[in-house]
C-alpha cells in the first residue's frame, strides 16, 4: 500500500522537473499561502470598489509616484517612501547606537558587581515594561525638539534588553572557563579579552537583536505623534490627507515598515553570528 502510494507520488513529482529544484521547493509553500491570502483579500473587496482597496488597487493607486519613484523630493515633507524610511533609519541608528554603547557598559557593570545588580534589578524590571510612547511626553518636555525626542524614545526603549542580556551573559559564564582563568592566574586584561568578552558576546547580541526590533517599533510610533518626516509621519500624514488613495498609501507604507524591520533584525543577527560565532 504505502510503497504504491510513495511510488505514485514520486512519478507525479518527476513529471514537472523544475518544481524539484531546491529553490522551488523552498518557496513553494510561501507562494501558495500568500497567493491564497491575497486572492481572498481581493475577493472580499470586489463587491465595493470604492471602499477598502484590494491588493491590485493598492498597487495601481500607489504606483506613481510611491512605488516607481521612491526617492523623489518635492521639498518640505513631500518625499518618496525611500527617503522617508532613510529619515526614520537615521534616527534609529543614532538612538540605537547610543543604547548599545550605554547598555553594554551598564550591563557589564551590573553583571560584574553583585551590589549593583541587586540594587538596580528592581528598577530595570519596572522600566523595561514601560511602552515606548509613554516616554514621549517626558522626552519632549526634556529635550523640547521633536527629532531629539524621537531619538531619546528609541534609546530608552532599546536599552533594557541590552543591559539585561549583557548582565546575564556575564553571570552565565561557565564555571569551567572561570576555573581555567583562576588556575592560570590570567591577568585582568587577558581575562577580559580571552574569556569574558567572547563568553558574553552571544548574550549581548541576543539583547541587541531584541532591541533593534523594539527601536523600529518605537520610531514609527513616535513619528506618528510628533515629527516632520519619517515613515511614521508619512502614514499619519496620509491618513490626515483623507484622499482617494490614502488607504492604499498607508497599506504600502505598512508593508515597507515590516520589510525594513525584518531586514534590521536579520542584519544584527548576521553580525552577531559573525562576531560571536567563531569556534561554536
Amino acid at each position, binding site marked *: 500500500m504505502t510503497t504504491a502510494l510513495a511510488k505514485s507520488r514520486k512519478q507525479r513529482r518527476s513529471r514537472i522537473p523544475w518544481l524539484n529544484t531546491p529553490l522551488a521547493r523552498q518557496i513553494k509553500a510561501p507562494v501558495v499561502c500568500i497567493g491564497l491570502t491575497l486572492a481572498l483579500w481581493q475577493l472580499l473587496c470586489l463587491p465595493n470598489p470604492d471602499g477598502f482597496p484590494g491588493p491590485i488597487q493598492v498597487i495601481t493607486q500607489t504606483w506613481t509616484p510611491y512605488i516607481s519613484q521612491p526617492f523623489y523630493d518635492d521639498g518640505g515633507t513631500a518625499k518618496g517612501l525611500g527617503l522617508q524610511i532613510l529619515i526614520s533609519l537615521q534616527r534609529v541608528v543614532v538612538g540605537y547606537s547610543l543604547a548599545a554603547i550605554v547598555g553594554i557598559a551598564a550591563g557589564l557593570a551590573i553583571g560584574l558587581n553583585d551590589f549593583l545588580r541587586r540594587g538596580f534589578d528592581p528598577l530595570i524590571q519596572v522600566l523595561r515594561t514601560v511602552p515606548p510612547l509613554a516616554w514621549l511626553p517626558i522626552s519632549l518636555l526634556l529635550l523640547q525638539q521633536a527629532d531629539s525626542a524621537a531619538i531619546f524614545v528609541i534609546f530608552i526603549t532599546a536599552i533594557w534588553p541590552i543591559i539585561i542580556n549583557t548582565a546575564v551573559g556575564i553571570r552565565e559564564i561557565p564555571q569551567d572557563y572561570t576555573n*581555567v582563568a583562576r*588556575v*592560570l592566574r590570567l*591577568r585582568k586584561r*587577558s581575562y577580559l579579552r580571552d574569556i569574558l568578552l567572547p563568553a558574553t558576546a552571544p548574550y549581548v547580541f541576543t539583547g541587541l537583536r531584541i532591541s533593534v526590533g523594539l527601536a523600529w517599533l518605537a520610531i514609527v510610533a513616535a513619528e506618528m505623534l510628533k515629527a516632520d518626516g519619517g515613515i511614521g509621519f508619512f502614514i499619519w500624514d496620509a491618513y490626515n490627507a483623507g484622499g482617494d488613495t490614502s488607504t492604499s498609501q498607508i497599506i504600502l507604507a505598512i508593508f515597507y515598515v515590516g520589510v525594513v524591520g525584518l531586514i534590521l533584525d536579520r542584519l544584527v543577527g548576521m553580525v552577531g553570528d559573525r562576531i560571536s560565532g567563531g*569556534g*561554536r
Partner: protein
Amino acid sequence: MVEDVEMTSMVTIDNVTQSFALKDGGQYIALKDISLEIKEGEFVSLIGHSGCGKSTLLNLLAGLTLATKGGILMDGRQVTSPGPDRMVVFQNYSLLPWQTVRQNIDLAVTNVLRHLSSEERTELVYKQLRTVGLSAAADKFPRELSGGMKQRVAIARALAIQPRLLLLDEPFGALDALTRGNLQQQLMQICQEAGVTTVMVTHDVDEALLLSDRVVMLTNGPEAEIGQILNVHLPRPRQRLEVMEHPDYYQLRIELIGFLQQQRRTRQRRSAVAATMATSPSRTAKVVRLGYLPGLDVAPLAMAIDSQLFDPAVVQVVPESFADWRRLEERLVDGGLDMAITSATTPLQLNLGLGNQPGQKRTPWAAITPMTVSRNGNALCLARHLLDLGIEDRASLVEWIQARDKPFTIGIPQHHGIAELLLRHWLTAGGLNVEEHIAFTMLSPLTMVGALRTGAIDAFCAGRYRVAEAVEDRQGYVLATDLDIWSGHPEKVLTTSEAWAAANPEALVAICSGLMQAAARCDNSNQRDEMTRVLSQPQWLGTRSAIALTRQFKTGRGDASPELLRFNQFHVDRAHIPNRSEGTWFLTQFSRWGWCPFPTNRQELLALTYRPDICDHALAEAGFQALPAPRSTFALADGIPFNADEPIPYLKKQLQGSLPPMERAELPATSSQQPVLIPTA
C-alpha cells in the same frame, strides 16, 4: 622508613573537612578528616562512588575551593588559591571554544611562562602538540575535534606550563572504551617522562590500577573518609596488557571492586534501616536498659549516673548488673537489654555469629558500637606458687610451660574476647604453641580469684581490680599487663543493635555523651577519690574492691610498684573513637586462630559495626573536639607492624606464609527482617 616518607612528601592533606551550607540552614559535610601524604613523582588515584567527594578533594588540591577545616600544604606552603603549579585537567576539557587548539595552549603558556620569548613559547606549544600527536589540528577549533582529541589538547595545555602537580578530574570519563585505552597509555607515558606528580579522580578500576602507584578509596558521602589505601606495586614501565597479566593484578582488582561493592551495600543497608525506622522525637525521656559486668571498666557509667551526666530530658538509664558475659549477651540479643558495655570484640562477634564457646555458632545479630568505653586495664595474674619457681617473665613462663606435660590453664572472662586475643598473641610471640600448651577456661570474673586459690586454674586474665584483689590476698602476682602486649587497646565498648540505634538516635547520642563526660572525669587524677567513692557503692564494685584501687597497684613481686597512671584509659588520646583499624586487627586474629574465615567483605562488616559518625555527634554534644581515628599502622608485642589497609600480608606472616581461608561473611539481616528493595542508583 617513616622519616623517608616525611622527607619526600610533596603534598600534605592535613585533616581536611569540607562542608557546604545548605539552603535550610544546615550543613552538608562532603569530606571529613581526610589526611594524605603525596610523594614527589607519585601517581595517586582517588576512587569512590559518585557523590563521595572525589572531585571536591581535587578542587581543594587545586585551591579552587578552600577547606572548611584543616589545610593542604604543598612544598611546605599552604594552598590558599589556585595557581599554575597545580594545573587541572577538567572533566569536560574546559577548552575555550572561541580559540583554536593552538590559541588555547598559547593562552596558558603566555600567561604562565612569561619569561620565555615569543619564539620559545611558539616552539613550546608545537612541542606539546607533537607530544600528544595533534600537530595537524593546531588551527582547528575545539568543536571540530572528537572527545579524545579535546582531552589530549587539555592534557597538552596542562603539561605545557610544567606544573608541579597535575590534577586530573575523571579525564577519560566521557570517552569510548577504545579511545580511553589509548589515551590512558599515552597519559602514562607522558607522566612518566615528565616525572610529574599526579592526582587523578576516576571511577574506573582498571584505569586506577594501570596508572597509579597508590589508589585511595573513599567511603560513601556525606562525611566521606579514606576507607582504604591500596599500594599498586606493579612494575613500571607498564603496558596495558602486560599489567593485566601480572599475577597480582587480579587480587588488586578484587580488592578495589570489593571495596566499591561493599560501599554500595553499606549505603543500601543504611537507607534500608533508616526507611524502616520511623524515628519519632519522643516527649518523654527514653528508658534505656544498659547491661554491664562490674569492673573498673564501667567507672564512666557509674560516674555518669552518680553525677547525672545523662541528659534527663532525653534518657533515663537503668543499669543492670550481670555476673557473666554469656547471660548479658543473651539478654542483649533477645531484647531484654537496649545496650550493654561489652568486650571490644563482642560487636564483631555478634555480627559474624561467632559464639562465646569454642566452635559455637549463632545467628548473626546486627550490632553496632558507637564508642569505646575504656582502653587497657587487663593484667595476667599467675598463681603465687609459680613465683617461687622463678617465673618472672614471659621467657621463663614459656620455658616452664613447654617443659611440663599437661596444659597450662588460664581463666578468661569469655572465649574469643579481647583478653584471649591478647594472651594468644603475646604467648605465641614468645614462642609458645598456644593450641598445644594452653587451656583457656571461661569463668565469671567474680569466681576467678577463688578458682586460682583452689588450683582449678594456673592463671587468669582479668581487669585491674580483680587482679588487685588476688594480689592483696597474696593468691597471685602480675606477670604482665596489657601495656606490655598492646598499649591502648580497646577493652570495653558500648554495644547496641543497629535497629535500636536507628530508632533512638537522640537517646544513643545522649548516653554516649554522658559516658564521655564521665570518662573525662575518670581520667582526671584529681577525681580519683570521687571515683573511688562512687565505685564503693554496692551496685558497682563494693567497698573492698574499691579500697584495693586506692592503693598503688601492686604486682605482688616485691619490686617497687611501677607507675601505672595510664593503666586504665577512659578519655585521653582519642580513647572513645570506634576505630575500624582495630576491628580489622580483630578480624585477622579471628581468622588466625581458625574461628572464622577472613571476611572478603570486611569493609562492609566494619562499616556496619563501627560507627564513628555517632561518636562524633556525641563528642560534639559533650563539648569535646572530635578528632579523627588515627590511620597509622600499629604494632603489638610481636613487632610486626599492622596496616589496616593490608591485613592479608600481616595475617600471612603470622600464619607462616600460608593464605588464610577467605569467605564472604553473611551479614545479619536488617531488623525489619523483610528485605527492603532499594533501587540501585
